[in-house]
């Protein structure tokens, strides 16, 4: 088990390194990075000052070293607009995004898993077809459009729900639904196919041959095995939700990191953009790592994998 953890840790570290390298390179190699890293409306002297400060005339790997050192120290630059360190800003917004993602994830699992199981157990019958339709719609409708239509319906026409901001439980309902919609469909699909695969497996066959009641076969033997890939995906999706919530948060003016990214673009506040993307990606790598470990805890086979 220990060896497994160490291996995964090394892998995660490598990914983080590559991530930072990618972001660094893209900024440095496409045009003049000083233009990005300096406030909009700066003068030529300001540009020159930034050049010197960032050491933009030094060799690339030196610059990267500088970049990484400040990163590790927790210095991700300052926001032009807010005039505060970006890291602070990000961390203050993160809880909101996590709240939204958690709500959306709860919605997607509560809807996705049972319907996936039902679709698999009643395969090719009515429920399955309904499920397939739901999955198709979920994967084809852009989440922000779902959000906009919901605002139209529930805020403008019916006046039941607030259309923006945060604060009460009512505020989170529509954004969570809009964000979770796509993932509900994805989870349903995966649950269904995973369940079907498990239902056709040899050990389920043997369980039936042993004369076990069908309810036990499904709830004990099939369910736990089928759930493994779904939960793995869900764990990873949680962090992905935080990242792709950009548009939903913008539509609903939800004060999370997604909206922060939007503000960064709208106000040409590049340090904010860079940091948000970097941190978002880093979060995903970390969560992937944690999910791998969790996976090994649930499924005893994985622990012994070399």
């Amino acid at each position: 088990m220990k060896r497994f953890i160490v291996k995964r840790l090394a892998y995660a570290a490598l990914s983080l390194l590559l991530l930072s390298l990618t972001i660094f390179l893209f900024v440095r190699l496409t045009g003049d990075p000083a233009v990005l890293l300096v406030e909009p409306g700066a003068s030529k002297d300001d540009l020159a000052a930034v050049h010197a400060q960032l050491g933009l005339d030094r060799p690339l790997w030196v610059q990267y070293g500088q970049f990484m050192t400040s990163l590790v120290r927790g210095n991700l630059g300052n926001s032009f607009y807010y005039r505060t360190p970006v890291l602070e800003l990000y961390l203050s917004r993160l809880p909101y995004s996590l709240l939204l993602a958690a709500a959306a994830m709860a919605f997607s699992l509560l809807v996705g898993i049972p319907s996936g199981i039902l679709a698999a157990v009643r395969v090719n019958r009515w429920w399955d077809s309904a499920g397939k339709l739901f999955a198709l719609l979920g994967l084809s409708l852009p989440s922000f459009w779902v959000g906009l239509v919901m605002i139209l319906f529930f805020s403008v026409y019916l006046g039941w729900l607030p259309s923006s901001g945060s604060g009460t439980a009512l505020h989170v309902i529509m954004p969570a639904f809009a964000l979770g919609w796509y993932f509900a469909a994805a989870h349903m699909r995966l649950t269904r196919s995973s369940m079907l695969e498990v239902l056709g497996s040899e050990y389920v066959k043997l369980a039936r041959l042993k004369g076990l009641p069908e309810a036990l076969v499904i709830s004990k033997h099939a369910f736990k095995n089928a759930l493994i890939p779904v939960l793995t995906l869900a764990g990873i999706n949680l962090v992905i939700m935080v990242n792709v919530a950009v548009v939903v948060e913008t539509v609903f003016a939800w004060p999370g990191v997604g909206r922060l990214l939007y503000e960064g673009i709208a106000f040409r506040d590049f340090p904010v953009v860079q940091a948000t993307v970097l941190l978002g990606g880093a979060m995903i790598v970390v969560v992937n790592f944690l999910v791998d470990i969790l996976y090994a805890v649930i499924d005893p086979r994985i622990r012994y994998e070399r």
Partner: protein
Amino acid sequence: MSALLEVSGLCTQYVSQRGTRVTRAVDEVSFTLEAGRTLGIVGESGSGKTTLALTLMRLLPPAAKIAAGSVRFDGEELLTKPEHQMRDIRGKRMAMILQDPMASLNPLFTVGDQIAETLRAHEATPRRTAWAKARDLLAAVNIAAPDRRVGEYPHELSGGMRQRVVGAIGISCGPRLLIADEPTTSLDVTIQAQYLKLLGDLQREHGLAMIFITHNLGIVARMCDQVAVMYAGRLVEAGPVRSIFNEPAHPYTRALIESIPKFGDAAERLTAIEGQPPDPAALPPGCAFHPRCPFVVDQCRAEAPPETQIAARHRARCWVATPAPAGALKG
């Protein structure tokens, strides 16, 4: 005294999703099995042997239908039984062992749990007792250190041990009939003999009747009292092991026996049967074996042969086989 298992005229068919193609996986199969005896069912893959076993257990996939026939087990007709009664029989009075033990054991539960659950489901054994019994069963199938093994997961055991666990599950509720579907095929050759010995011992101890499904005639010769040879869903020859091995009547059986390499034959080439087994969905007319048969005559191509008695309790479906002279038949 009636036999433990009487199968007559059994037909199982697979129907394609649109109802267009009908595949006869099991076609007019009949045989009987006495208590405590072993029947070997031999055939190539696709011959219908596994479908036959699943039909007996009434655990066919939704696409398959039992079209005709009767299966009488211990005096009761199985084909008309409602599902909950079949569930009582499965695992308790009729048990089955599958081929790949790694796949048939649920990787997420311990070995002990999977043995105990059969006991708890059929005999309402309380947890502690069931667990203790599982441990005893592991000892009965010759697994060393059963106290430790009972709490281990399938992947922690070797292939041979896993198959023994599957065997333990099979005998756990004291069935009268054990069906073993290629139980040794995924085991190492050295382990196979041990496992077969185990099955033989268990049979003697518990008075089990066994159906052994295999493509390996060596195992049949060693373990079985009777043999039934299947080809393209039909039983082409059946009878006592001695009789079939010494005087095979059907050309297919003859070819199977001849294709076993024997010591001392070093200089000769191995005889293989020419051609391929037919696609079950598109069987040739007449006798299904005729395209590959060295003794084929015109009648074989036209009509499927009925059963002919070759000797006492030895029958075959072949136009060319020599029937027993009238009057020489007994029983």
